[in-house]
């Protein structure tokens, strides 16, 4: 069976869901895989809910748009309400328990990893790195790519102006992965 992974990443505009979608997709390309990255690009970008879909495969990719994702990264409550009913049975969901109550996870149907992304990021010095914590947890939970591959691609998706933040973001990715490895599913 060939490799096939997809994920919908959703949150508030400003939580950096597009950035980690780009990071994941770029990392997959660097790993020699095929990948599509499909953002929403409408008024959502200006402050409402934002989401993007990333599909990774070693075969050519059909649809870049996913109705029933294999996995989810959910950064806020409205995104949980919208996407949790659509995830496939036994799909992997990373849920930001800093902003969402853990008991809202449909643990009977979904492999839900509760990760307090904002709290972990805060502990590292900047709550805005919550997105990096989440992508670290996702990579750990799914094994889609080596964690180092994702960390190495930070420089490709973060503008040179913010290059000094890359080591901290890399740390946040590692912290997210460590949390997922330590605590497992809810």
């Amino acid at each position, binding site marked *: 069976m060939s*490799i096939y992974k997809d994920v919908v990443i959703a949150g508030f505009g400003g939580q950096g869901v597009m950035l980690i979608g*780009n990071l994941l*997709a*770029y990392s997959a*390309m660097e*790993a*020699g*895989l*095929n*990948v*599509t*990255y*499909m*953002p929403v*690009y*409408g008024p959502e970008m200006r402050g409402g809910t934002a989401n993007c879909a990333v599909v990774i495969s*070693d075969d050519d*990719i*059909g*649809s*870049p*748009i*996913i*109705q*029933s994702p294999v996995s989810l990264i959910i950064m806020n409550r409205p995104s949980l309400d919208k996407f949790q009913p659509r995830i496939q049975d036994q799909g992997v969901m990373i849920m930001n328990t800093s902003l969402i109550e853990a008991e809202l996870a449909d643990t009977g149907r979904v492999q839900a990893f509760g990760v307090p992304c904002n709290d972990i990021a805060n502990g590292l010095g900047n709550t805005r790195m919550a997105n990096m914590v989440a992508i670290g947890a996702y990579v750990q939970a799914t094994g889609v790519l080596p964690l180092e591959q994702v960390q190495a691609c930070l420089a*490709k998706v973060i503008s040179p102006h913010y290059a000094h933040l890359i080591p901290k973001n890399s740390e946040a990715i590692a912290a997210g992965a460590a949390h997922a490895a330590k605590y497992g599913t809810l």
Partner: protein
Amino acid sequence: MTEQTPKRIFVKGNEAIARGALAAGCKCYFGYPITPQNDIPEFMSQAIRDAGGQFVQAESEIAAANMVLGATACGIRAMTSSSSPGISLKQEALSYMAGSELPGVVVNMVRGGPGLGDIGPSQGDYFQSTRGGGHGDYRLLVLAPASGQEAYDLTIKAFDLAFKYRNPVMILGDAILGQMKEPIAPWIPDNLDPDEAADWRLDGAKGRQPRLHKSLFLQEGELAQQNRHLQEKYEAMKAEIDYESFMVEDADIIVVAFGSIGRIAKSTIRKIRSTGKKVGLIRPITVYPYPSEILKTLAEQGKKFLTIEHNMGQMVEDVRLAIRTITDSDFYSCLPGNLPTPDDFEEPILKALEG
């Protein structure tokens, strides 16, 4: 994992088109902003000047299209891009380019319509693109990419075909293709001919007779002759027909879908195939001229047909024309304004297969 291809870059479909145009030697880009194609002028505004070309943000879509007419009259590879409402405004210039045989390249990243519609994806401009679009008996050569790489490759091809036939060529994409990012492997063609327009370009008449490009033919018999010539040219364009064929050989039913919908349908077909049901796909890459022959051949083999489009039923007419003496095609419409997913197509395909 597949073989490492380090030369790949990760770009939106819009940027793939802009990069393809530069690789093809496009020296003039004229545009006017509209979502969802703004990445093309944004990229071009810097990159084409870096490449020694010219960028103009025109005062309107109409002006931009007429600037392409002017540049191509001088034998320069030139392009404009827009999205549906803006493409409607360009139709006059397209008709004039077709009438005076000038090789402009026009990109339409289609959005929902009619009117201003929305900024989401749609295939509602199929008729406009493949039937000429403006006034008079003319056709564009229309290429419909479904991926970033294909967008890049077909943009290079668009310039070659435009100059080969001295006819405007359209890249027909949509908001999905334009906004989606994918890895592409850029390449530079090595067959660019600086003298490709030497016989007809306007470059000052020093040492030769003046040349005239026109679409007005008032002398008796003159216009009839021009129209006959154009029709012969459109007939000759059939040599460029291209399509993707996916698992058709043993298929009981052929899904016909172009552009983004073609690739989304491919996901559905893979899923249905895994249950043992025999479904195939024909994805036209040239939508004018249309790959009628392959459809007719498949119809003669007794296969059923289902056309899927992101509009209310446009290309299905070309499918029906192709197979009309043998069978008919079912049609499934994904409504413009909705975002199509592979799940949406499963039931209609199964229904058409059993029906």
